């Protein structure tokens, strides 16, 4: 095996460990009210932290990213579908980049 393949497989195993450990070890429901509440909020917290402020740097230009973000926020507020929100944000960013 060459070195690249070894590194790739190592990455694969290391990526899999945090994914599989809790799911296999934690069977059945947790009893603690705190933990259950905590886990209820995790998806929103993770998504929020992943999106902001990284989104500002996602297009290579903060200005166009801000416009795309605003378009996404407004459409999401009106509860448009995932695809609508994503495609509209892309188009907004693209138009901004053409203008700049």
């Amino acid at each position, binding site marked *: 095996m060459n070195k690249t393949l070894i590194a790739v497989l190592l990455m694969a195993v290391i990526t899999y460990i945090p994914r*599989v450990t809790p799911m296999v070890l934690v069977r059945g429901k947790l009893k603690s009210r705190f933990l259950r509440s905590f886990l209820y909020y995790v998806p929103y917290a993770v998504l929020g*932290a992943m999106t902001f402020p990284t989104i500002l740097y996602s297009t290579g230009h903060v200005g166009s990213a801000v416009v795309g973000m605003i378009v996404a926020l407004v459409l999401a507020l009106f509860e448009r579908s995932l695809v609508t929100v*994503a495609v509209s944000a892309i188009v907004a960013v693209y138009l901004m980049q053409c203008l700049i």
Partner: protein
Amino acid sequence: MAFLAQDTSGDKVITKTTPRSASMDFRYGLRKGIPIALGYVPVAFTFGLLAASGGISPWMATVISLTNLTSAGQFAGTNLIIAGAPLLEIAVTTFVINIRYLLMSLSLSQKLTSGTSLIKRAIMAFGITDETFAVASLEQGDISFSYMLGLVSSPYWGWAAGTFVGALICSVLPPAVQSSMGIALYAMFIALIVPSAKRSKPVLATTVIAVVVSCLFTWAPHLRDISAGWGITIAAITASAVGALVFPREEVQDE
């Protein structure tokens, strides 16, 4: 979106009592996975370009996508491989970036259909990504093996195919289109959070705290030296802990 009904229905989120067949679950999951797959293709394409421009063959790049199935982790790991970094550094970096999966996996473990076997859990765990987690965790009711299989399959192949094509053809899309597509996944995340945050103050508060902490880890002196993987994990833990302390939820009666 259907799963958002969870927030308005208070705390009585009970596993659906209607029996669902495995193939129904699979098809439902498949449908939910298609927008994720669409979001993956441009990112995977970019990954393919990056890997190929660093001298990694299209086949190897595809193997990376098929075995890792993660964006940030494999981007960073592949950069290190290209730079000729030692295995230990590759291992540590990959782990730190992917540490957030611990939280996601723990969170999903609470939503699995009871009695899901160990081997099924192990297979489902492989399919946890930021996006599949986002969709699965906000699903109303429990998560079955068939559902997860359906949800993950098109993103998985989209991810691999996008990588291969990206690595093969260097740049076909004009750069302006490529960079515009960078916002797609984040726009999708916004579409997932905002409607829930609109309905539930605790969710809004928790999300805002997570965003503030995440901004601190991006911009504040010293804190910004900490890797992005840790920053997101710490932000999410802090915000969820505050949320759980200030707005504890009523026990869900689903046992």
